[in-house]
């Protein structure tokens, strides 16, 4: 099975200003993301999550080691365009990503740049807008939309380019629960139905719990890597690196400190309630 993303012994430092030394983010990090998988990346502020994301479509290039996207070396200049076509990026703040005055023109911007034929663009734009639930707003002005709506337009713009892989850097940080749910449903559907590889960087533990795999970064290293249940049950580790588990797990953890012996891998409300019920009734 091919790897959508393969990071091999990556090191990266931000360059220093004048004579000051640069800031090292990664010294030696390796990670692979399987084709078609859905991986969440967690980590406290400043741990290197966004720096890593920028390596995935060659916005940043490795200082040492290699990053391969669908087998292509990101430092190979001749492959640069192919790499960027393969990986679409969605950032935290939708205001920085919207370029046109009309929603559908904004979504068309990407495919137009790729030289896609006009009738195909029309189709892709309509499909992309439907997929994010913004079709009825296609003729609106983006600056009059709410934050959540803008973010969905930004995602539509990426979908319209039909990348193999989408990297989302905290796409829901500015959204309300409804907007978050819509964006998460969109991401899950893209992954499940279209087989698009998804890398989701997030601070929301409940979003990470929806992924197939969770990678936790801390100080430029991988602190944990596994299924959501495997990762979130390591509550002490997560606390030590300024993270938390979902409230369901935190509740069981808190009770265990008071003498209960509850399992720490019950992430859903249903499972957690059942475990508590059994413990209290026992």
């Amino acid at each position, binding site marked *: 099975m091919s790897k959508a993303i393969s990071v091999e012994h990556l090191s990266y430092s931000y360059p220093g200003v004048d004579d000051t030394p640069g800031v090292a983010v990664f010294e030696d990090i390796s990670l692979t993301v399987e084709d078609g998988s859905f991986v969440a990346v967690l*980590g*406290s*502020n*400043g741990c290197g999550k966004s720096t890593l994301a920028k390596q995935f479509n060659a916005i940043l290039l490795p200082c040492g080691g290699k990053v391969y996207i669908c087998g292509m070396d990101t430092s190979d200049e001749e492959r640069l365009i192919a790499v960027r076509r393969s990986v679409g990026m969605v950032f*935290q*703040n939708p205001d920085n990503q919207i370029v046109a005055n009309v929603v559908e023109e904004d979504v068309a911007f990407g495919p137009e740049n790729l030289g896609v034929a006009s009738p195909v663009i029309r189709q892709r734009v309509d499909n992309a807008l439907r997929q994010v639930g913004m079709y009825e707003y296609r003729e609106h*002005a983006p600056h*009059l939309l*709410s*934050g*959540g*709506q803008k973010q969905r337009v930004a995602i539509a713009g990426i979908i319209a380019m039909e990348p193999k892989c989408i990297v989302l850097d*905290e796409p829901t*940080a*500015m*959204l*309300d*629960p*409804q*907007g*978050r749910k819509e964006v998460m449903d969109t991401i899950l559907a893209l992954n499940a139905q279209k087989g698009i590889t998804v890398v989701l960087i997030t*601070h929301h*533990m*409940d979003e990470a719990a929806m992924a197939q795999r969770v990678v936790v970064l801390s100080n430029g290293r991988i602190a944990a890597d596994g299924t959501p249940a495997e990762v979130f049950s390591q509550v002490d580790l997560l606390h030590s690196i*300024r*993270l*938390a588990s*979902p*409230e*369901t797990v*935190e*509740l069981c953890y*808190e*009770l265990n400190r*008071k*003498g*209960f012996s509850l399992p720490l891998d019950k992430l859903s*409300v*249903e499972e*957690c*309630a059942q475990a*508590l*019920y059994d413990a*209290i009734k026992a």
Partner: protein
Amino acid sequence: MTPFLQVKNLQHIYSTGTPFEHVALEDVSFSVERGEFIGIIGHTGSGKSTLVQHLNGLLKPTAGSVILDGKDIWSDKALTRQCRFKVGLVFQYPEYQLFEETVYKDIAFGPKNMGLDNAEIDRRVRKAAGFVGISEQQLESSPFDLSGGQKRRVAIAGVIAMEPEILILDEPTAGLDPESREEILQNIDAYRKAQNATVMMVSHSMSDVARITQRLLVMNGSHLVMDGTPAEIFNRAQELTDMGLDIPEVTRVFLRLRQMGMDVPNVYTVSDAAQVLFSMKGGRIDA
């Protein structure tokens, strides 16, 4: 006694007379006292941001009034200006508004605009930095060399340095890790207690507002639909869910336990939930 801040039948219509005409606020009334910590919740487009922008005179009501200390803030120009200093507004992602060469200068910008003398500005900058946990050493560094969480603190300090009597924050914890989120909330609460200031916090994070505020205002479809303590508001969990709002996960766990036939109260924080279950076991667990 006149309330400290009073919002009366507030209405706001955007782009009146254009195809984009939109009623953002309709008949919103409430009043606020000194020292209160209030959370404002509601889904995107419910009118939260429009509401808070009225409280320091950034937006002018199309009908109704905002009354601060017994006076309508639009009744004369001097009052409107005064209100912008009395009511400090921290926007979403305030770190994008940092612009000065040093953290110190950035925090000093607001007090300087107020026409204060240098000694007073210096006192306020250091005090504000103290509230948000920015060290003396960091005051001389460039704000652009700081991490996201620290930039957020600097931006909040810039507003706190104006010593507003009402501090309004729009999503102050968005995009921060859980630990930084908790620290910033504690910083804000410390300011509230020290100055007996009113704090109003717009947030989507139900766990944050449940933990730290004493009163919640719920906006839905341009109207203020609920006003009460977190306990009262989260008792109406189903209505909140219907409005597209989320309730804390522990609250949902307890709702489920009740459906399963257990006699548990409403909770909205992990520590309260743990305490309830612990005492149900008689406060003692045999290991």
